[in-house]
């Protein structure tokens, strides 16, 4: 696999990476290889986590959480994953499944304040409209709106993670493709930290189901860059 790493761009300046996804575990499944790469290069990474994932369907297998305790498990799990990835975490305080019903402007203003105070140079989020979960789409759209509002010279890049089955046929090739196998160990540790959520993926991994498309997909992380007018 070809590694399209824009070395000059990334290494010449000190980057501040801000990852914005709605659920504890989105960062580990979607971007932990990329995060590990940035950390190895010494760039600070902050994860702004939209919700506590309190409406998740996975309760552990065997079940150890219930609807009322799930949020505290997931919060602990994310803190553990953050330790593994050596990143900072902040919770934005929204409620799982409800982000799309919050006023977009308010969420965007909230995000803009965070992005600016962290002096983000790269923001990683979901590709709105191509991210399957309504929370992913809503938060991704709010991130785009937030960054759009920032003065052009101070605008961070926005890298967007697309998930939907139709994304490649609609969007073409991603702008950034990382083969994250060099960071596989960190990525696995981060995924594993999400005990209540990771059972399905972990059994694929432990059964060495290398043919699994789902598992293969985790070894590459792809992002589209948002083009601001």
């Amino acid at each position: 696999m070809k590694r399209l790493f824009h070395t000059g761009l990334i290494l010449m300046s000190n980057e501040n990476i801000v990852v914005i996804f709605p659920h504890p575990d989105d960062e580990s499944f979607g971007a932990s290889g990329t995060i590990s790469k940035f950390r190895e290069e010494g760039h600070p990474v902050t994860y702004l986590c939209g919700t506590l994932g309190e409406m998740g369907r996975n309760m552990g297998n065997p079940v150890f959480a219930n609807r009322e305790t799930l949020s505290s498990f997931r919060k602990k799990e994310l803190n553990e994953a953050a330790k593994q990835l050596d990143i900072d975490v902040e919770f934005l305080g929204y409620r799982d499944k409800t982000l799309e019903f919050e006023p977009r402007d308010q969420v965007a203003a909230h995000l803009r304040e965070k992005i600016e105070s962290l002096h983000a140079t790269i923001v990683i989020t979901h590709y709105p409209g191509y991210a399957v979960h309504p929370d992913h789409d809503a938060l991704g759209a709010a991130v785009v709106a937030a960054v759009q509002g920032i003065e052009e010279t101070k605008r961070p890049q926005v890298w967007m993670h697309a998930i939907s089955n139709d994304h490649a046929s609609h969007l073409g090739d991603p702008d950034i493709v990382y083969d994250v196998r060099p960071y596989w160990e960190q990525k696995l540790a981060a995924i594993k930290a999400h005990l209540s959520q990771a059972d399905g993926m972990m059994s694929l991994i432990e059964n060495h189901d290398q043919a699994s498309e789902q598992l293969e997909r985790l070894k590459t992380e792809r992002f589209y860059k948002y083009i601001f007018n």
Partner: protein
Amino acid sequence: MDAIQQKSVQNKIDQLANKKVYVHLETTNGAYASHFDENAYNVGAFIRNAEVSYQHGKIVSTGGSYRVGLKLDLGWVYAEGLTDYEIDNKDRLLMAGHDREGRLMVALEISETPFSHGADPDE
């Protein structure tokens, strides 16, 4: 949570009858159902902190799982597919139905105090 013990659940339902209670009722097949299977449908509903009072309620065994119905002055609260329960440290009756992989499919919870409604990161 433990496998439902019908008698214990019925006792708790009786105890909570004719009181102001808060209900969390939910069913879901997940946000990824049609992503992983294009023939599947994403279906889900939840209501959190519906404030009701029920005249009487009953838990009925179907063999593998349970149904619960609560009769209100003006309607009903109903859930099917419940398998597990817990009376938690806040004395709330929590019930849920899980699939083979432990994923929640349905939940019905009854409490005399409201369930947390914000994300409450400090909980």
